């Protein structure tokens, strides 16, 4: 997955619009260096309306940006646990899918054909 510093410039624009709407106490939790990086790297010509936000018509990179910031700086301890649990479930599911796809026990059966 992409990291916070290598996203599309339009994502920084969209992310900034949303982050700027947060309550001041939440905004204060996000480090200044993150704000500076976002402002320096955003596409100033890109427009996003609240309808895009409301209907989740956002770039995938925007969601990555928001998710990273929320998980690291804004989520409560309880929410962090829930996020971790969700990630673990997804990880286990992907491992299971990979195992079923590449099940070594099937190799010999395939070769037999």
């Amino acid at each position, binding site marked *: 997955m992409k990291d*916070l510093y*290598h996203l599309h410039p339009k994502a920084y624009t969209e992310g900034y619009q949303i982050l700027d709407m947060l309550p001041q106490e939440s905004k204060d939790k996000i480090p200044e260096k993150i704000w500076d990086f976002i402002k*320096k790297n955003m596409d100033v010509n890109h427009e996003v309306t609240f309808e895009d*936000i409301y209907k989740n018509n956002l770039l995938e990179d925007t969601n990555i940006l928001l998710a990273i*910031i929320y998980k690291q700086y*804004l989520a409560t301890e309880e929410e962090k646990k829930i*996020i971790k649990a969700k990630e673990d479930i997804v990880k286990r599911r992907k491992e299971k899918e990979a195992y079923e796809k590449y099940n070594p026990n099937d190799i010999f059966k395939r070769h037999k054909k």
Partner: protein
Amino acid sequence: MEKSKVLKYVNPEDKEILRKHSEEIDMTSEEGKEEARALAMVLMEEVERQNGAAGFSAPQLGNLKRIMAIKTFQDRETQLILVNPEIIDMQGVSKEEEGCFSIDYDHHYYWTFKDRPFRITVKAQDLDGNELTIPFSVADSMIFMHEYEHFFGELIIDNLEEKLDIVKAEAGKTGIRTKEGLTQEQIDRFVVELPTEEEKYKWKREHPERKREVKDRGMIDHKDYIVFSDKDGTLDLETEEGCKTLAEAITLIEGKSNGLFVITTARPAGEIVKILEDKGIPVPKYIIGDNGFIYNTIDETYVTEERLPKEEMLDLINDMVTSGKAGKDEIEFSTGDVVILQDCPYTAKSKAYERKLGTRIFSQDVVQSLSDTEKEILSLSLRVSSVQAVEEIREYIENNHLKVQLNYQSLDDGNYSVDLAPSGIHKATSVLKLSQLAINGDKKREDIRGKFTTIGDGTNDITMLTAAYAHGENAVIADKDSEESKELKAELENAIKPYEGFKTGELVELDGPANDYILALAKEKAEKLASKAMRRAVGMVAENGEIPSAEKGSPTKTEKSK
């Protein structure tokens, strides 16, 4: 069988044409009319040829002109020809399933669900150049919008919210669609043609006027909340701070959260627009003026259709004035953008302010002005000399079966002020109507309870505040220590008594004007929307794997910014 003329998106040359904008046809000239007739013939033939077609627009047949032929669900036998159509009103949202003869491959048609206006009013010309105004709703609205968007190079694969679904249309059988017999390759064939996110955003930037037209123009989309506020005595528009606060609040409500801000006032809506523009404050989408008329500031049209019957009002005034029961020097009427009134010496102080806006027109002979004006009359008021005269006016209304409501109050000089307006038009009914349209606009049976706030300071706000209270929302009184607000509170406490014991709102009193209260409410809503967007992002991203740390990939000091 003659080959179909319909352009196909899979063909690169056709695709280029389908993406272009079309021009209007000059229906004032004979050449234009001839061209329109020729195109209409071709379009109608194609509609009949293509089994199951609801309509075609000229661009689909390679001709970049604004003319369409459609069959509505209301009348499947007749084709309607619309030349140079324009949308003049949209209301609500509905999701309809639709396909397009240009989006297919080898008769395998693609269908999708799109948000379309629930109700739409269209202005167009017929083949003789005569103007038509036609309402469409639900599926017919979808049919019109589908063809209308072809004039702007838009297709059903643009701005998709639902995945395209491919089905095979059985020849000769309309309405029957099946996936049987389709291979995965056939199903996947169009997947690569779906617009990427870059293309979607590029399209939006290149067509800002289309975005505004479809998204904003007259459309009351589903809203989460509405703030209705009286103006005079309730909002501070005199100080710089007050104007700045209100401007910020309106921007947050209508631009950064899913809300509406509506000024409800006795003044004509046109006057409010001018006042706001004069102060550099964003004009909200709707204004309720003349104590009950809902005005759409984007379309510059009224949602409220009722009007006073002009001829009958003239007869009434003439009768009252001639008999000496009404004062000719105190009659006024409103057309929605201006108020025409007799020049009265004792309003000299307000004259200077009102003349600046140009929305108060002083006439030597108001009755003549009323007779001469071609504009519709929203409200009328006159001064009469006795209660008996008030009753005579009431009798006149009843005997002539006029749908007019009458309110009156006694004046200090012993006379009475009589206000006439169409029946059922007052702040409360309009507040509830706009709330129903905006909050229930997507047909969901969602209660409007607790979704709107009303703010006022005078007794003409009482119906609006009572309605809010009864619907579980706060009724807010601004500037609580003023005489007007005290009078309002006393009347309001009486008016809300019948609702005690039910699930009602609360009575809130503010020390001063409502600007700060509205801004605080707007900030709260915008913050909720932002927080919701962030939590949704977490859910979506976590679905793809572990969310990385904010430190991962952190740029070094020597790394240049993008």
